[in-house]
C-alpha cells in the first residue's frame, strides 16, 4: 500500500507543471463549490439566529395589507405575552443613491427597544432618539455605508409613503445577536402616522411580541390568531424563525439553480482531473507494458492509476479548502456582510461544507480515474510495448 502511494506521488512529480495546473484547476473548482454552498447555507442559517422567544403577527393573506393599530393592545393582553411592538415597512430610499437597498422601518420606539433587546444603543443616544420625533437610529454597518454619524441630518425618500422625510440620526446601534440586521434604519411610527390623511392613519404592518416561555410559542400564537379570527381582519402569528424561513419560498427557484450550478462545477472539476489522469496513462503506456512484461498483474497497473488519481484528489482538496477559508470567510464574506448585510447577515463556511468538499474531491478524482484505469487494466503487453507515446 505504502508503495502504491509512493509510486503514485512519484509519477505525479514527473510532470510538475501539469500536476500544478491540475491541482490549481481542481482547487478553483473546490473554492467555487465552497462559495456556492456558503451562499446557500448563509441564507438558511439566517433563520437560525432568530430569537426563540419572539413571535410575529401579520395580516393573514398579505404582507402589504395593514392591520388596525389597536390589535397590538389586544395582543399585549394575551397571557404569556411579555411585551409587544408594532411597525410598518416604510420602503424608503436614499435620494442620492436610489438603487442601494436597505431596510427602513417605522416602529413604536419605546416598545421596540424593549422587544428587540439585543439591539445595543448607548443610553444617551437612546434618550435622544425617544425624545426626537424625527429621530432615527441606524445600524453601524449602514452608518458606514451611508457615511453618517450621530447628529447628522438625512432625508429619506418615501415610495409607499410619498414625499421627503427629513430625519435626525440620533443613534447608531450594534447588536449582541445576529437576529438583528445591522444595516437597517429605524424611526418613529408616530412621525409617519401623524402626517397621513385621517382615513389611512393607525394602520400597522406587523406586530412583534416577546413571550415568557419559548416552549409555549405555538399555543400563544394560536391564541392570538383565534382572537382575531372573528374580527374583520384575520392574522397569522408564527415564531420569528418560521417567519424568516417562510421567506425562503420566494427565492426557492434561485436556491435550486445555485444547487444545480454547484453540481456543474463538480463536473468541470472531474473533467480537469480526468483529463490529466488520461494523459498520464497515455504517456506511460510503454512503462506499463514493461511492468506487465516483468510480471505485474493487470490489477496492479490499474491500482497505480487509481492511486495517482486519489493523491491528486486529496492534494487538490487540501489546497482548495485551505484557499477557501481566506477567500470566502475573510474576503468575500466580510465584503458581503458589510455591503449586503440585508441579504447575508452571516456569511461563514459551514463545517459540513469542508467535509463535503474534501470527500467530493476524493470521490470525483476516483470516479475520473475509472476509465483510464480500465484502459490500463486491459492493456495488451505487446501493444503497449509497440506503441509510441
Amino acid at each position: 500500500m505504502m508503495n502504491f502511494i509512493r509510486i503514485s506521488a512519484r509519477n505525479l512529480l514527473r510532470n510538475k507543471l501539469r500536476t500544478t495546473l491540475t491541482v490549481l484547476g481542481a482547487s478553483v473548482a473546490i473554492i467555487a463549490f465552497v462559495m456556492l454552498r456558503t451562499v446557500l447555507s448563509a441564507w438558511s442559517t439566517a433563520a437560525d439566529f432568530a430569537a426563540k422567544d419572539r413571535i410575529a403577527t401579520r395580516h393573514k393573506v398579505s404582507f402589504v395589507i395593514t392591520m388596525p393599530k389597536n390589535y397590538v393592545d389586544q395582543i399585549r393582553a394575551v397571557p404569556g405575552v411579555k411585551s409587544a411592538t408594532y411597525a410598518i415597512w416604510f420602503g424608503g430610499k436614499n435620494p442620492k443613491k436610489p438603487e442601494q437597498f436597505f431596510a427602513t422601518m417605522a416602529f413604536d420606539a419605546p416598545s421596540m427597544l424593549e422587544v428587540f433587546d439585543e439591539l445595543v444603543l448607548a443610553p444617551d443616544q437612546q434618550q435622544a432618539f425617544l425624545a426626537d420625533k424625527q429621530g432615527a437610529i441606524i445600524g453601524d454597518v449602514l452608518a458606514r455605508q451611508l457615511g453618517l454619524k450621530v447628529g447628522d441630518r438625512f432625508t429619506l425618500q418615501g415610495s409607499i409613503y410619498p414625499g421627503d422625510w427629513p430625519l435626525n440620526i440620533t443613534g447608531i446601534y450594534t447588536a449582541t445577536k445576529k437576529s438583528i440586521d445591522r444595516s437597517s434604519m429605524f424611526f418613529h411610527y408616530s412621525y409617519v402616522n401623524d402626517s397621513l390623511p385621517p382615513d389611512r392613519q393607525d394602520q400597522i404592518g406587523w406586530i412583534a411580541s416577546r413571550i415568557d416561555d419559548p416552549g409555549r410559542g405555538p399555543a400563544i400564537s394560536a391564541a392570538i390568531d383565534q382572537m382575531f379570527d372573528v374580527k374583520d381582519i384575520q392574522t397569522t402569528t408564527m415564531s420569528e424563525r418560521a417567519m424568516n424561513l417562510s421567506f425562503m419560498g420566494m427565492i426557492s427557484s434561485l436556491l435550486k439553480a445555485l444547487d444545480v450550478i454547484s453540481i456543474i462545477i463538480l463536473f468541470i472539476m472531474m473533467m480537469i482531473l480526468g483529463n490529466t489522469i488520461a494523459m498520464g496513462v497515455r504517456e506511460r503506456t510503454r512503462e506499463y507494458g514493461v511492468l506487465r512484461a516483468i510480471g505485474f498483474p493487470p490489477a496492479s497497473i490499474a491500482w497505480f492509476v487509481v492511486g495517482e488519481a486519489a493523491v491528486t484528489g486529496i492534494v487538490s482538496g487540501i489546497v482548495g479548502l485551505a484557499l477557501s477559508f481566506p477567500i470566502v470567510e475573510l474576503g468575500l464574506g466580510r465584503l458581503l456582510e458589510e455591503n449586503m448585510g440585508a441579504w447575508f447577515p452571516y456569511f461563514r463556511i459551514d463545517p459540513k461544507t469542508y467535509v463535503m468538499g474534501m470527500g467530493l474531491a476524493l470521490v470525483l478524482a476516483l470516479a475520473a480515474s475509472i476509465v483510464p484505469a480500465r484502459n490500463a487494466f486491459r492493456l495488451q503487453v505487446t501493444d503497449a510495448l509497440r506503441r509510441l507515446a
Partner: protein
Amino acid sequence: MVPISYNLRNLKVRKTTSAAAAFGLALVVFVFASVLMLSNGIKKTLGRSASPDAALVLRKGATAEIESVIEDANVNLVLNDTSLPQSVSGPRGVSESVVVILLDKIGADGFSNAAVRGIRPDSFAFRPSIKIVEGRMPQEGSDEVVIGRAISGRFKGLTLGESFELKKNRSVKVVGVFEDGGSSNESEVWADIDTVRTAFKREGYTSAIRVRVSPSQFDTFKASIESNRQLNLAVMKEAVYYEKQSEGTSLFISIMGTMIALFFSIGAMLGATITMHAAVANRQREIGTLRALGFSKASILFSFLLESIILSIIGGGIGALASLAMGLVSFSMVNFASWSEIVFRFEPDGGVIVGSMIFATVMGLVGGFLPAIRAARINPIEAMRA
C-alpha cells in the same frame, strides 16, 4: 502559415483529452449562456406586458403598482383629462387595484407572493392581447377569478376549478385561465375590483390608472397631469414602467451569474492549458521539424493558439447549444420591484449566443497562450535531436 487541418487532426488524435477539455469549457459556457438567457427572459416577460400606446399613472413617488394609492375622485379627473384623445377604439383607460397575497407554493417549502389585480369590466378590452384559453370569463361583480397561464398550478388553489381565500369566508373560485403571449400578466390573478377592495378594505382607492395615449400625445398628457399639484400623480409610459420593474432582478441575476461564470472559467481555462501543454510537449519533434522547414516562430504561435481556440469553440458551441434546451424550463421567483412572483423563461437570442461564443474564444485564447509561447520558443535543432 501552418494549415488548419494540422490542428484539427491533432485534436482528433488526442480524442480523450480534447473531449475532456472541450466538455469542461462546454459546461462553463452552458452556465454563462443560461444566466444571460434568464436575465433576458425577465426583461422580455415584463416588457411584453407593455403596450406602445399606453401610459401608466401612479401616485407620485411610488415605484410599483402595489405601492400606489389613488383616490377614486382623482381617477375620474385623470380619465376625463382634456389632453386625452377623445375618440379611441376600446376603453380610454382603466383603473385597477393591485395587491399581493401570500399563498403556499406547490413543490417548495414556504409561501410566496402572488399578485392579485382587481379588474374592471374594461380591463380585458383595454388589453386585447389577453385571451381566455381554458374555462370562461369571470362574471362581473362576482367572486370568480381568472388566472394567468404561467401561474396556474404553481400555488395551492391556483388551478382551474379550485378556490382560495382572499380573507375569511371570502373565497374566490378560479373559473378561467388566460394567456398574454408570455407577458408578466400571465403571473397574475385577476379578480373583480370590488371583491378585492372590500376584502382588503381599499374601498374608494385604486392603485394605478392606465390610459390609451399615442406616443405623440404622451408629453401633453404627462404635463397636464403632473402640473396639477393637487392630484400628486406621476405619469410614465407603460414600456418605461415595465423596464424599471425588471431592472433590479435582471441585474442581480446577471451580476451573480457572471461572477459564477468567471470563476468557473478559471477552471476551464486551466483545463485547456493542460491539454495544450501536453500537445506541445508531445509534439516537440514535430514543431522542430516545422521550424526547420521554414515556418516562422509567429506561425507556430498562431497555430497553437488557433488549436486552443478551435477546442474552445467546439466546447463553447456544445455548451451554447445545450443551453438552448433550457428554453423549455420556466423559472419562478419574486421580482424585487413588484414583490410578487413572476414566472419567466430562459429566453435565447442572437446576443446571448454571440456573447457565449466570444466568452468561449477568450477562454481558449487565454488558456492556450502560455503553451503556444512555449511552442514558439522551441529551438528546432535541439527539438529534432531529442
